[in-house]
């Protein structure tokens, strides 16, 4: 068999340019994220735990606390941030620096695929549908990367990233912004949620991402009349995760019908005044006090 020189044997540059372009993409993210003090990833391994609700409310509370804050809705297929924040749909300005994110009344800078789509329009990508499993993951990672690098976030104390369920986007974030990212794990009290969130947080730990702590959402039901918190879900996932992973339990947020109504109509001021909102505002204060964001 004849000896053919290997890739490494060839000293000439890689003229396909693929490696250089991938490196350039990472440098674009680096340049943008240098102006962001902390990226706070709000993660869970499971859908339906109210992660987007926690992320949007927390970002709003941080913006109202005097810092500069942004919210990146990284749930590309189920974006909710603009509606939770009551953001009106306007055209996004494009400048040489990037796409200017909309700003809510509290100064929170927001980006989401929801801003790009018609009401109710699903996210669809062009490409050969029959083989979409081959390229869809790369494309969604690329979209996430562009949301970090090509949105004109400006100087931020904190960029809250609302991650979709599962660990994949968290792993991508660790790859793209390894130095500034901290993670908050959101769970509900059930054992199923605990197992899923533990998996995500271990994936974060495997990539050396610092974990700020656990938030237990839907931690009981807050009575709209007397304010007392009664049982809602069985389990103690927040405490158990904190114990097992040696992390602080940062907040317990009860289900609160008043907060849910405010979220439904995009009334963040009302939401933050609710029982659940006050718990999240206290979480924001704690994170600021501890220097997490």
């Amino acid at each position, binding site marked *: 068999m004849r000896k053919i020189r290997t890739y490494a044997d*060839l000293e000439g540059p890689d003229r396909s340019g693929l490696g250089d372009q991938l490196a350039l993409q990472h440098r674009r993210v680096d340049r943008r994220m240098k102006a962001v003090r902390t990226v706070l990833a709000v993660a869970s391994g499971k859908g339906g735990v109210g992660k987007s609700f926690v992320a949007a409310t927390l970002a709003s509370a941080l913006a109202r606390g005097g810092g500069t804050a942004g919210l990146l809705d990284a749930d590309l297929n189920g974006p909710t941030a603009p509606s939770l924040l009551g953001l009106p749909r306007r055209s996004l300005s*494009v*400048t040489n620096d990037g796409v200017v994110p909309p700003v809510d009344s509290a100064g929170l800078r927001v980006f989401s695929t929801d801003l790009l789509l018609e009401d109710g329009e699903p996210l669809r990508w062009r490409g050969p549908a029959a083989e979409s499993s081959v390229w869809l993951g790369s494309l969604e990672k690329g979209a996430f990367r562009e949301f970090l690098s090509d949105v004109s976030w400006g100087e931020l104390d904190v960029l809250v990233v609302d991650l979709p369920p599962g660990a994949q986007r968290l792993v991508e974030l660790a790859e793209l912004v390894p130095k500034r990212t901290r993670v908050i794990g959101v769970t509900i009290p059930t054992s199923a949620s605990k197992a899923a969130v533990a998996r995500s947080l271990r994936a974060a730990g495997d990539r050396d991402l610092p974990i700020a702590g656990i938030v237990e959402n839907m931690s009981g039901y807050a009575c709209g009349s007397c304010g007392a918190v009664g049982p809602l879900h069985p389990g103690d996932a927040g405490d158990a995760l904190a114990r097992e992973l040696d992390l602080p339990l940062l907040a317990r947020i009860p289900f609160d019908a008043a907060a849910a109504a405010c979220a439904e109509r995009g009334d963040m001021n009302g939401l933050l005044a609710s029982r659940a909102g006050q718990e999240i505002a206290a979480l924001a204060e704690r994170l600021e006090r501890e220097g997490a964001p």
Partner: protein
Amino acid sequence: MKFLCIDCDEQMGFGERQLPGDGTLAAVFRCPACGREVAMLTNPMETQVVSSLGIKIGGRTVPEQPLELVRSSLDGGRDEAFAEPPVDSVTSPETSPVEWAETATRRLEAVPSFVRGMVKRIYTDYAKEHGIHEITPEIMDQARTDLGLEGM
């Protein structure tokens, strides 16, 4: 990715890229010693795998536009999602303006509004870079191939 001319034991250089518009791609590599050329042909799925990474085989010659991958890959999208500045306001003031032939303008108008502004900027940047004063459909074809703009 590197290409080796086995007869000459020389690394081949990138020659050109062609996008016929059916989702396939041809990338030509040339041996600097003997001049032999080979074309790497990819099927639509393979082309898509590369473009999904946000990269162009053979490299880029014009700057990447903000959210270029998202805007060029999204199927649909809100018509008024982006407010683009006038093209001339975002290019160098010392370069002469680029005119759009009526036929090219009509073709541009057929591009979905979601991505039209970005496409116009890319073609204008390409024309300025190549000293072209009027963009015609032929120039658009040439730019699309040179820049690897599948689907634009």
